[in-house]
């Protein structure tokens, strides 16, 4: 089991250049990322990223559902 992130871990994440990866995910995630493949991201003390990715994957499920509806609507036209 992963240990929870300590504040020091979090600081370490934000202090490294990899924090830009967190921001890229966060920025693209704000809009909900459409997933069509596996996501593999490596980062020290990575729980925070995984927490965000789980949200991302949920968002993707919703979007895929919307896509299917959209496709069904187009097919019906």
């Amino acid at each position, binding site marked *: 089991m992963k240990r929870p*992130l*300590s*504040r020091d*871990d*979090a*600081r370490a994440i*934000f202090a490294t250049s990899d*924090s*830009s*990866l967190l*921001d*890229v*995910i*966060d*920025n*693209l995630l*704000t*809009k*909900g*990322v*459409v*997933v*069509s*493949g*596996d*996501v*593999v*991201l490596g980062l020290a003390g990575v729980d*925070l990223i995984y*927490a965000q990715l789980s949200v991302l994957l949920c968002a993707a499920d919703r*979007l895929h559902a*919307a896509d299917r509806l*959209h496709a069904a609507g*187009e097919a019906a036209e």
Partner: protein
Amino acid sequence: MSDVYVYALLGDAPAPDAGAGLREEPLRVMRVGDLLAAVGEMTERPAVSEATLRAHDAVVRRLADTVDAILPVRFGSLLTESSLADLLRARARELSEALALVAGREQMTLRVLGDGPSTDVVASVADEDAGPGARYLAARRAEWRRAREAPELAPLRPDLAQLVRAERVTRHDTPPLLASVYHLIDRGAAAAYRAVVERAEAGAVRVVATGPWPPYAFAPEALG
């Protein structure tokens, strides 16, 4: 007919040297009414990976450097030209307003770190005289408001006020990450913004600023 992958909506046409898309496809601008969309032709959605996320972001940044107003579009928006045109037409007014808000501006991201939810976050005030329905609605309202507030930033507010043009808050309340706060600032004000954040002694919480970024958090869910 091939589909278009959408990177951003733009307030004006990008410079011709804005480069290629994430698959090295040529970028082009689609005009729908007053709206411009920066798109590349693609046949299938790119898989999500660190490389493709960064590549998408790099395209958006390059575009942002050449235009005054940009609304970044989320990763993975691949659709037919006609459905893109329909979506843009249907939401033209909202998107134009959003473009006006971000014109000449960029985003800073503040992460509020701490060991637990802020003690300033007060539970909703229960009105003893109200009925259960009214109490429920009041609680829901308080919850809605709380999800969009960052009381931890109170010590920074006076200095931030002159720099911040708009704000979006996402609360996480999962220590150490308590909230992400997105601020829209004038382009070129990032150094002043960082100085305010670094000067601030926010007590039990710590705030970390990153940016400037294209205004991702201020783009409506245009194509959702």
